């Protein structure tokens, strides 16, 4: 396995859009109690037009990392830079949430339009842009539907359209397809790839699915839990577009998959907070009758 290089070294690159340098972030849990460290010394850099998958088990601070990159929260220590400055939420950074987060009382077109309101566009320009983006995600027929009338996959396409409408240079995606059924998910991945190929924003894509990470990403940043940090960054050198051939049969795919799966399993088995902590999953059940 080759590492994709030291983040600090690569941050000299003018093409780098997102840089995290030894970022720490902790929270007081909602019910009170001791501070929990979500991220500890996390470093990362994402180049322009790069699709980076953040892969890791739950509880390794993947979502926290995205919220830091969007500027929704501030780091306790370390620095976050997007386009060379501390990030501010806005049209330059798009965010696609796992739970869609559509405005239920607004029709599809108004949901998409929601991200265009602060760009200083005229009403006609906004309408035109909305129409174009809605068409791009294939929902023209549903532009006047309320979100409650849409399936999960369609809702996530609306959310994607809303994130893409201001033409962001960085797109953050937080397990966007996790709550969508397997078949729709595969089609959504292809759809995302097609859109991304055309627009090429830098993408930070959070997932806990090894396959999803390999299928989509140029680079995979593997994250470990408690406290969350980036363990290693791996390039995915499989030819694009990957949906036109059976990428899963490639030796490189198999190699990456085995490596990442075993690391992910180790994280869970060695995580005291995990329900599988200390279990020996290599053997048949020895405690059985």
């Amino acid at each position: 396995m080759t590492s994709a290089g030291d983040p600090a070294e690569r941050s000299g690159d003018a093409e780098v859009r997102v840089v995290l340098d030894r970022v720490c972030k902790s929270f007081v849990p909602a019910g009170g109690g001791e501070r929990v460290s979500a991220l500890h010394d996390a470093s990362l850099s994402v180049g322009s037009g790069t699709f980076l998958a953040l892969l890791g088990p739950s509880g390794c601070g993947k979502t926290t990392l995205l919220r830091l990159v969007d500027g929704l929260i501030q780091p306790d220590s370390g620095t976050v830079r997007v386009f060379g400055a501390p990030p501010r939420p806005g049209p330059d950074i798009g965010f696609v949430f796992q739970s869609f987060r559509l405005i239920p009382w607004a029709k599809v077109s108004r949901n998409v339009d929601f991200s265009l309101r602060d760009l200083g566009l005229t009403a006609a320009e906004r309408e035109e842009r909305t129409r174009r983006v809605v068409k791009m995600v294939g929902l023209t027929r549903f532009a006047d539907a309320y979100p409650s009338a849409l399936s999960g996959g369609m809702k996530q396409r609306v959310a994607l359209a809303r994130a893409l409408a201001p033409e962001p240079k960085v797109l953050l995606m937080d397990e966007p397809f996790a709550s969508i059924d397997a078949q729709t998910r595969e089609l959504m991945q292809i759809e995302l790839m097609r859109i991304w190929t055309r627009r090429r924003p830098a993408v930070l894509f959070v997932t806990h699915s090894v396959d999803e990470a390999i299928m989509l990403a140029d680079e995979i940043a593997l994250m470990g839990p408690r406290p969350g940090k980036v363990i290693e960054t791996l390039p995915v050198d499989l030819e694009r577009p990957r949906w036109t051939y059976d990428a899963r049969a490639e030796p490189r795919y198999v190699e990456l998959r085995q490596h990442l799966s075993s690391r992910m399993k180790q994280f869970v088995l060695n995580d005291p907070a995990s329900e599988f902590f200390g279990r020996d999953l290599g053997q048949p059940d020895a405690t059985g009758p």
Partner: protein
Amino acid sequence: MALLRREFAMLFGVLRPCRRAAVRTASALRNLCKPPASMVIGLYRIGFLAFLMALWQVAATRMGSNVLPSPLATWKAAQTLVGEGQLIVAVGDSLTVYLSGFAIAVIVGVPLGVIMGGFRILGKTLEVYVFALAATPRVAFIPLIIVLLGLGVEAKTFIVFLGALMPILINAYAGVLAADEELLEMARSVGARRGRIFTSIVLPGAVPFVIVGLRIGATIGLINTVVAELYTAVRGLGGLLAIYGNTFRMAEYFVVVLTLAAVGVIVTESLRYIEARVSRWRVI
């Protein structure tokens, strides 16, 4: 914040079921439009009404007309009261007091609740007093109101206003506080400023709460209308209640009771209709 919301959930545990009930009512209304089901339900309702009338008739014959007038006697009394005009005048008096008191409660309560929800420090400061006032039986203020405002329309309107205000205010406040945390973060990530987040996410999200508040306020307002008319200058439907009740003219008394029921039903059903209209997005 989370603690406060739990407090609200406990205090107003009725809210969410009400919301759900509203959704159910909306879809039930929709189902009523389909001919077969609505015909059947309609027939059942007429059947039940016939059953009630029969029961009333039986009870009236058993107890005697000086306790419980028969349906026919009540109908005749209604005709006389309408014909002689005193019922119309009473309904006019009561509606004037009721609707103006309720309207002022809406005009004051909704903005005040929204402002309390929008400015957290103000809300936190005032909420204890609001809750304390809401927990006090408002009837206790009637002597004070009489001293201050006399026995006329102003006093009556104020009593209605005071009763309707609290549920309207508290529900508007709770609705603003219950804004969807996930949508708020989405709006922030889009770069929306505070004002736009408030008008496009917080306020529309609070509408179902506000309408529940209006419905509760309308009910309490009607109760307070009658209470006010009984305690201050005896007028309106409450006044007729007192007169006929005290003189044992039970048929006339029943007419007044049924009129009050009709007013209550019309007002709450109108609000329900408005609720179904503004929450069309809930049902497909």
